[in-house]
């Protein structure tokens, strides 16, 4: 087994376990911490798929920015709101069995049986950072500037939404 394969399966285990914990965990703090491991594992996937830039972006913006923002939200609004509804266990059991069966069927049908367009010889991934920079300021200049503008507008809007109201 090569190193890339071993790391792929390790990352897969990490991402799926922590993703499940983020989705199903009873406590919201625990879910936010599990999301940290999921996002870090996704950065590992991007390295394996051949884009180091996207992995770094993921770590800086997702893990360093969005996740910290989520933590702030969790800690600022910390009231126990997550209560389990009791007495409908049979319904939950039927629902989870049905959705797992449906999902298995759909996954098998769509992913395994579709003739995806795969190229026969895969080139080894290499660093494409110079080309990416040239494209972001070349062919993709307009989307790039629009994204920056959207970010600025969102920051202004967020600051406006949580401002102290004057009366």
């Amino acid at each position, binding site marked *: 087994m090569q190193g890339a394969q071993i790391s*792929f399966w390790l990352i*897969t285990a990490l991402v799926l376990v922590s993703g499940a914990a983020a989705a199903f965990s009873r406590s919201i703090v625990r879910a936010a911490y599990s999301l940290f491991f*999921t996002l870090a594992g996704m950065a590992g996937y991007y390295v394996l798929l051949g884009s180091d830039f996207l992995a770094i972006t993921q770590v800086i*913006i*997702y893990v360093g920015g969005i996740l910290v923002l989520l933590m702030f939200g969790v800690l600022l609004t910390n009231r126990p*709101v997550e209560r389990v509804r009791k007495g409908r266990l049979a319904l939950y059991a039927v629902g989870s069995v049905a959705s797992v069966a449906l999902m298995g069927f759909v996954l098998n049908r769509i992913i395994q049986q579709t003739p995806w*367009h795969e190229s026969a010889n895969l080139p080894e991934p290499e660093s494409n950072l110079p080309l990416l920079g040239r494209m972001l300021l070349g062919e993709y200049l307009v989307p790039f500037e629009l994204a920056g503008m959207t*970010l600025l507008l969102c920051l202004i809007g967020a600051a406006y939404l949580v401002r102290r109201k004057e009366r």
Partner: protein
Amino acid sequence: MNPGLQTYLMVAALLFAFGVVACVSRRNAIGILIGIELILNAAILNFMAFWRFGGMVSEGPNALAGPLFGVFIILLAACEAAIALAVLLSLFFNFGSVDVDAIRQMKR
């Protein structure tokens, strides 16, 4: 077993399913946000897998389609998280809770 396109698609589909479950079943609004982040990450993983295994062309505007889409998705996710947190905070100031089942003022 060499991880191919279909393996990555399976992982992304599972992550997407986790995200949908979190969106639907959480009562805390931050839990719903966590679900949305999972869904967005599954989308980026799909883009990257199709880019990697669908034949990386070295020329033209499609040469880096996967990472470029990923970068733009991450940017928009950052915008969405900032706005959502602002909305959540003003919800919390006005209603004293972020339980999405408790905010039903317009129902009456």
